[in-house]
């Protein structure tokens, strides 16, 4: 264990974990838009910035992104100093200029007292803040169907050649992980569309309810060695089957 001080309180943190994890365990609320436990930290949004210092640093301080900064013995962390708040405000002010219509950004900025950007709003803005969560989760899932395209002002998230992505299986991980809900999809229970690509949904043989896309099931069967039969029924039916089995087991237990 590593001893650190967060906002004046001595706490223990696990070796190798990032500051953000320790801060969150203390129930301290700091924004971290580009962070998700499922993927590696990335440091894109800069909102999780905190102040760090150590007793032996002679009053010297530093501001670091807590999602990317590993805990260190003796670290003194402050999450809401006037400077940290000022930094976070500036970042939110900029986000508000680049994504002025995002409800998530507007809400967060309002929490920090900003209702209008002091910069010029970006024309043709989108709600995408380029946090890279969607591309990271897509990589992690093993598909890499989408990526960052272009750079500078024109940078965006898109499939290769901006065509329906051949490697996409319609799992929706990108849409679910997107902090600003920018990634759109449609799903009518029969068919699903995302990134301009259409998918057919499998149905549970018992309940008739839709499960996952044919492509996603095919991938899991092939690459994750999940038995083909598994996708014939949905999770609910799997649970029911399991419950019946468990019931039988306790029954046998009683008889014995």
């Amino acid at each position, binding site marked *: 264990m590593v001893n650190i001080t967060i906002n004046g309180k001595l706490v223990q943190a696990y070796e190798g974990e990032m500051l953000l994890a320790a801060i969150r365990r203390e129930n301290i609320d700091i924004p971290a838009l580009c962070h998700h436990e499922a993927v590696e930290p990335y440091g894109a949004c800069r909102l999780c910035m905190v102040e760090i210092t150590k007793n032996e640093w002679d009053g010297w301080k530093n501001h670091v992104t807590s999602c990317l900064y590993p805990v260190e013995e003796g670290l003194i962390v402050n999450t809401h100093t006037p400077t940290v708040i000022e930094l976070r405000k500036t970042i939110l002010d900029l986000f508000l200029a680049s994504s002025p219509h995002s409800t998530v950004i507007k809400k967060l900025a309002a929490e920090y007292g900003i209702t209008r950007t002091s910069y010029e709003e970006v024309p043709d803005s989108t709600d995408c803040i380029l946090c890279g969560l969607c591309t990271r989760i897509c990589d992690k899932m093993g598909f*890499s169907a989408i*990526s960052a*395209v272009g750079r500078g002002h024109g940078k965006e998230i898109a*499939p*290769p050649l901006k065509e329906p992505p051949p*490697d996409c299986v319609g799992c929706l991980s990108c849409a679910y992980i997107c902090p600003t809900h920018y990634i759109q999809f449609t799903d009518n229970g029969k068919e699903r569309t995302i990134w301009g690509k259409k998918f057919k949904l499998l149905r549970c043989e018992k309940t008739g309810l839709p499960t996952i896309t044919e492509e996603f099931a095919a991938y899991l069967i092939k690459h994750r060695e999940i038995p083909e039969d598994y996708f014939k029924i949905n999770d609910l039916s799997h649970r029911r089957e399991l419950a019946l089995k468990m019931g039988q087991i306790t029954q046998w237990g009683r008889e014995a």
Partner: protein
Amino acid sequence: MKQDFTTIPSIIARHPRKASSLIMILQDIQKEFNYLPEEAMRKTAETLEVPMSKVYSVATFYNAFSLVPRGEKLIRVCVGTACHIRGSKVIREQFENELKIKPGETTPDMKYSLEVVGCVGACAMAPVVMINDKYFGSVKTSRIKQLVGKG
């Protein structure tokens, strides 16, 4: 312009078959065709076993790569800070007028492509214009006709 894509595999084969060869291969392809044909990007992705999305991401990131065929003469007007201060805006406009194209475009006869770039590392000579691999410093609007002619 007729193009022979059969050389693509041999260009790719010049480099070790690993992901870190990606940029070098794309550079060679760019040199050969003056742009990155879709087919070449696909073949590269397939050979190196790199997802197509990554190839596309790299191809669209660097200014050195183009996804559309470029003209014989690539004119790059630097609009970096130093050049901006020394009047790159009028230089750019003069080229636009002279060639009747906007940055990012190519003349219909495939002779010229115009691009704007941020700092080419020759700020002392600002405003700078690059024509293919050659640098031209302290460019004046009066010189542009001549630059388009030769270079």
